[in-house]
């Protein structure tokens, strides 16, 4: 019984090598230390930390969280300690692991994005960036960078010029044509794309007739958004040639496999961490068991193996 070979779980996303395809999604795993009692961080494929801006941000007024059927809305408002405190207080802990650390960065102007990227680019212990472009561009009247192919192009191009580190761009699902955004992000020089960020939503208290979130609207995450995320990943992998990382509603190994089969090179686990703090590790174990059961020696043989016509599954 023990003559089976352990399947290969390692993948590459652009020039980044990961021991397995499971990452933590930004904003759902803090800076790693919050979950260190539950998760051996060395076992993760990569860790993506909370969205980081140039200056500390205090975030939105509470309530910031409301549960909806099979999902949750959040309006955290990108509260974070700022890039300097991140380097000083949060990074030393993360450096003690072998797992690649990616910093999710965002700004209100293109300048802010490039300043953070160049500041972090000089620091030891960071493997790459995830660019959150689901933020309003204050310099351009508050339109979200990521909903317009031209402004998405500009911000990615500017960051690309300031850093040689791995650059992944995280797309917002709140757009009519995800493919055109993905294409312009690729043209601007991104190494990879991750999607999706949360879907804008709302909830009302019918007794008080007030919005349930202090910020009125928020971002929907969790199992409720998985079908949308999966469809968007499918559209992007079908039309854009750079690697894609799937995010959205992944709760267990079966959900993760759906994204991999559709063509995602890796996946991120978000809301699931809150419900099961060991979700990432359970997903890694579940994927490995599935590969053994199916006699698949290398996870790369599974990625993108979606069978579109009957009988095409080998």
């Amino acid at each position: 019984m023990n003559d089976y070979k352990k399947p290969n779980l390692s993948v590459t996303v652009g020039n980044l090598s990961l021991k397995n395809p499971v990452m933590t999604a930004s904003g759902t795993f803090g800076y790693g230390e919050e979950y260190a009692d539950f998760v051996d961080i060395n076992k993760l494929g990569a860790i993506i930390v909370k969205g980081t801006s140039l200056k500390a941000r205090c975030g939105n007024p509470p309530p910031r969280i409301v549960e909806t059927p099979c999902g949750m809305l959040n309006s955290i408002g990108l509260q974070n300690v700022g890039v300097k405190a991140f380097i000083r207080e949060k990074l030393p802990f993360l450096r003690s692991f072998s797992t690649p650390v990616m910093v999710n960065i965002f700004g209100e102007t293109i300048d802010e994005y490039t300043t953070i990227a160049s500041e972090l680019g000089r620091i030891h212990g960071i493997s790459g960036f995830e660019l959150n472009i689901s933020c309003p561009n204050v310099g351009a009247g508050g339109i979200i960078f990521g909903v317009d192919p031209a402004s998405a192009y500009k911000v990615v191009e500017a960051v690309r010029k300031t850093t040689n580190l791995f650059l992944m761009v995280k797309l917002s699902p709140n757009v009519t044509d995800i493919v055109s955004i993905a294409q312009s992000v690729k043209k601007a020089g991104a190494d990879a794309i991750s999607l999706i960020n949360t879907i804008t939503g709302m909830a009302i208290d019918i007794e008080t007739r007030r919005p349930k979130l202090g910020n009125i609207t928020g971002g929907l995450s969790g199992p409720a958004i998985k079908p949308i995320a999966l469809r968007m990943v499918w559209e992007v992998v079908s039309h854009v040639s750079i690697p894609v990382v799937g995010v959205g509603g992944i709760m267990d190994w079966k959900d993760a496999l759906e994204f991999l089969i559709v063509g995602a090179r890796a996946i991120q686990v978000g809301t699931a961490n809150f419900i099961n703090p060991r979700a990432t590790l359970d997903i890694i174990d579940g994927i490995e068991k599935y590969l053994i059961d199916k006699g698949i020696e290398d996870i790369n043989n599974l990625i993108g193996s979606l069978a579109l016509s009957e009988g095409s599954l080998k």
Partner: protein
Amino acid sequence: MFQVETEVVFNHQVGPSYYKIGLRAPEIVHSASPGQFVMVRVSSKLDPLLRRPFSIHRIAKKDSVSFEILYKVVGKGTEIMSSLRQGDGIDVMGPLGKGFSILPHPKDLPSQIIYLVSGGMGIAPLYALAESAVIDGRKKVAVFLGGKTKEDILCLDDLKRLGVEIHISTEDGSLGSKGVVTQLLEERLQIPSNPEVIYACGPIPMLKKVSLISQECHIPCQVSLEAYMACGVGACLGCVIKKRLDKGTETYVNVCKEGPVFDAHAVKFP
């Protein structure tokens, strides 16, 4: 912090919509202190999705392997919880957050009195504090219990057994004096010999008032707060309240990690 997949030891109804559940979790029992809380996953389904936060109600028995939660059925999650039976599986994370701090007892001095002020469910964490203070023989305890009706006055028998001083008020006068619990507290504070610390848990307006009263009397005050929570460990930043800093500035802090117990005089109540 631990995540334990464990079982229900008992689950009793203790009032019209109040229940007490016992959960087997030696890891949590041995590391918890009064005022800390747990996050409970009431079912393995995806709806309700998030864990629910509950104060640790009883942990005092040193040799015990289980702890208790006192809860009120208010929605989907607590409804499911109330239907659990002995032996059913349940998933808990804890102990979480910072609990109450009890001042060390100075040698050669008579033990000091502390006041515990509870509105409704507020007794859930305060009972753990009372029990620990009494059992260790460190403090004398006076408990002020407030509720809408006599049905909302919980743990009376347990408190009597502990032998603490008890004051009761109900808004409809069906038990104790008629009125709100902060009135009782104010009356008691008229008598000289102030308590060492006032500890409070209950609805926000009540906590705000207790904080004001304690400030006027120059008595330290600790309050246990609630907030909507997703992670319970400081990762999501969803559970914030406003805290006053020096120099008149304010900041958001996590209830789950920096609290749920706070110095009342540093909290900026809504």
